[in-house]
């Protein structure tokens, strides 16, 4: 009993002693419990179970890595002429990685400024009552399943963007990323990126909003008292305070955008890697896996799992980078 108390850091040393000294049981029931060994066993069992659950999580993550590696191994060791129609693994995976990165990068390029704007609107511009409702709506939208965004992208957004793509290829066709002829269905990488952006906006927004709201009120009031306009106040107090939080929110969105499958699988009419964003073509890792997995078997299955392993390592690197950024700015921020 005393030992467990000592382990509880919240109990200060002085109080600890009094606690052990004054443990006079109030009721007969508690007396019985304290004198018998049953309670002690309960303590051991309970802490053991909690520990076991924690260790199980470690084991699970290691298992994820191990099983992916084991199942992916044949794709690395087999003769490269048998993989992906004789392409070999690395030439097969490279365009997919590039496509994934491009799609996620465009999505974040669109989503980040908009999300910060919306988060600022909710935290510092909108009337309080409206802000509460809006925060709730944003949370709700973050919960909409990705397959529904994909279905919306293919049935509404892609056809709606076709005139825009035609205009882009006419006006800006000399830039390689807008080179024509544009896709007639609108099922392009740019459409997929826009759908991804719509999907990650609620995520980035809700994290940013939380952090903006944590800005010390005194800082804001001090800025206003010195005569700052609202925008100057935000620039001088809110944004510096929230910078690491914004970075981690964006990284969270990046992780989501990199691994997002359904939206891309449904929206993009895939093909080989090309520079133009408004022609059908390009592909991402996750969508490639989803589209080919049901029919895959044997070595092609191993190849897809190897592609998944690459995606896993990629998102892992992004996440660790995000953690590192946050831990560097931990003292003065709302990110922790």
């Amino acid at each position: 009993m005393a030992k467990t108390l000592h382990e509880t850091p919240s109990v200060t040393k002085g109080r600890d002693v009094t606690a052990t000294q004054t443990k006079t049981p109030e009721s007969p029931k508690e007396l019985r419990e304290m004198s018998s060994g049953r309670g002690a066993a309960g303590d051991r069992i309970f802490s053991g179970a909690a520990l076991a659950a924690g260790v199980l999580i470690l084991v699970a993550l290691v298992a994820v890595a191990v099983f992916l590696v084991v199942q992916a191994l044949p794709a690395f060791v087999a003769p490269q002429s048998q993989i992906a129609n004789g392409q070999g693994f690395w030439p097969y995976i490279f365009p997919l990685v590039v496509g994934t990165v491009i799609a996620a990068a465009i999505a974040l390029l669109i989503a980040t400024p908009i999300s910060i704007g919306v988060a600022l609107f909710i935290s510092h511009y909108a009337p309080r009552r409206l802000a509460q409702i809006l925060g709730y709506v944003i949370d709700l939208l973050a919960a909409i399943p990705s397959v529904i965004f994909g279905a919306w992208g293919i049935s509404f957004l892609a056809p709606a963007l076709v005139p825009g793509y035609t205009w882009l290829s006419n006006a800006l066709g000399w830039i390689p990323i807008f080179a024509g002829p544009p896709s007639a269905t609108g099922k392009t990488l740019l459409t997929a990126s826009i759908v991804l952006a719509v999907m990650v906006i609620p995520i980035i927004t809700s994290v940013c909003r939380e952090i903006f709201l944590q800005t010390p009120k005194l800082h804001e009031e001090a800025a206003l008292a010195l005569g700052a306009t609202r925008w100057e106040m935000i620039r001088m107090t809110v944004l510096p305070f929230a910078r690491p939080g914004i970075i981690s929110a964006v990284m969270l969105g990046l992780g989501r955008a990199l691994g997002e499958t359904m939206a891309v699988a449904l929206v993009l009419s895939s093909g080989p890697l090309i520079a133009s964003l408004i022609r059908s073509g390009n592909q991402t890792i996750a969508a490639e896996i989803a589209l080919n997995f049901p029919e895959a078997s044997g070595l092609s299955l191993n190849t897809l799992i190897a592609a998944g392993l690459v995606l896993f390592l990629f998102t892992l690197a992004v996440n660790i980078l995000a953690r590192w950024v946050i831990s560097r700015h931990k003292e003065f921020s709302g990110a922790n």
Partner: protein
Amino acid sequence: MTAIATSGRRSALTRNRLPRYAPWASLAVGLIVGAALSTLVGFSLFGWGLFAAIVYTLVYVSWSGAVEGGRKARDKLATSLVIGAFIIVVLPLFSVIWTVLEGGIKGFLTPGFLNTSMNGVSGIQDNMSVNTGGRVLGGIYHAIIGTLLITLWATVISVPIGLLTSIYLVEYGEGRRLARAITLFVDVMTGIPSIVAGLFAAALFATIFGPGTETGFVASIALTVLMIPVVVRSSEEMLRIVPNELREAAYALGVRKWRTILMVVIPTAISGIASGITLAIARVIGETAPILLTAGFATKINFNVFSDWMASLPTYIYFQILNPASPSNPGPSIQRAWGAALVLIIFVMVLNLVARLVARIFAPKTGR
């Protein structure tokens, strides 16, 4: 900040300020010029809105810059941009909801949609219903059953593990290396792409039971990998805000630690924990990719998660859109897909509302 400018007379304090009608005047100019500009390039409501917003911002900000000076103008520009960002976000999100409602209501109201499966429904029936105008056959009963069972199993597995882990982190692990490692790994797990979780479950069962093992339970394992970190994070947060005084009071009465946790700490935090778990369920119920890789493609009703393929609402939507039952007449399949999307959105919304209500109703009464 605008409170100073309340008096009608122009005092020294209000000298270099825009008149109060300035935003409305700018908006009127924006709407008119925007209409003209959008007619030039081919009128559309979207183009009108876009041009009007740009012209409004230009007029308002430059007017402010001329009268009030650069700082105020920059402030107004920021305000316009922030509000603009908000409008840009609202549009697609409402469009998503509207598309689902518009497309889904017809399929949803078709008799038999909710209580029949796709067993025996093929392109022949779809072609017939298009040609004769009869009602669209086939429904989502099997997919609803699959979604509920797969999610139920995932919840049954991940809630105890997640809750116990968060208890370990908060009550036992304080400052230990293992606890830090678990926190790090949970963070890493949060970032696992859902399709990788599906690949993991598929690879795990393929290694143990041979390749091609695709059942509802494999999908549950995949969802568990996604759900555990969410449960751990939200429960941990809730357990941490339980005041230490409560624990100390229990210890002072001689209550053992495990009973303190079970009888004092968890009841205090239960509303937050329950709402966190509900949100975690809402997150995994819409996951498509892991189920796609692990549960196969079923058209029949299957109540057994341990054998045979299983359908689910998200994969149902996916397959109906990507592989319509009748490639020449995809209409009925699209209608079914939107109906299923509507049902799925209703599930998610209800779970979110329940989470909110649980958090509010069962919140512990604080004396403050």
